[in-house]
């Protein structure tokens, strides 16, 4: 294992620790918007993990998966916020 692969592994472990911390905050979050924010942070960190793993395995397909996962995370976040703001009614 080269030094660069060790650094990539350490970064992935830190991101996993960050996802676990965000998940704990998501359970104990006092308000609804905290939970939506944690959803956004978890989605951004998962995109980073997939991108690092694509470099680690040297495969191009995983990078396309990372881009599409980012788009899905953004749409989830925006539509959920709009749905909660209007109270579930069509406007």
């Amino acid at each position, binding site marked *: 294992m080269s030094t660069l692969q060790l650094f990539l592994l350490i970064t992935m472990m830190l991101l996993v620790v960050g996802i676990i911390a965000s998940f704990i905050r998501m359970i104990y979050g006092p308000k609804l918007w905290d939970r939506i924010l944690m959803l956004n*942070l978890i989605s*951004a960190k998962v995109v980073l993990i997939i991108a690092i793993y694509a470099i680690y395995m040297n495969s191009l397909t995983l*990078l396309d998966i990372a881009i599409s996962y980012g788009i899905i995370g953004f749409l989830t976040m925006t539509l959920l916020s709009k749905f909660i703001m209007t109270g579930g009614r069509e406007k």
Partner: protein
Amino acid sequence: MNVVAMIILVLSWFFIIFGMIAVFGLKNMYARILSSTTIDTVASFLVLFALMFVSSSFVFIVRFVLLIIFLLITNPISSHVNIRSAYLSGIPIHDKEVKL
């Protein structure tokens, strides 16, 4: 090229740790949303910028540039939509309302 990527990766670890501290340390909800989203954007930018230096071919670099532009545009928009939804639903900005 590997040394440059390692230096930027080490720089990004601090931002990830600061993001975790900001999620748990702040008491106000708006401060939590603002600081954690901003720090997380910088951390993701640094990680993807470091991965650009160690990519093996030109096709990887195009994908990374696309991903960086997408994250830099959509992450502040998500934070703005979230804060707007919270403010329009009637959450006060300060914890204690100041009586004039």
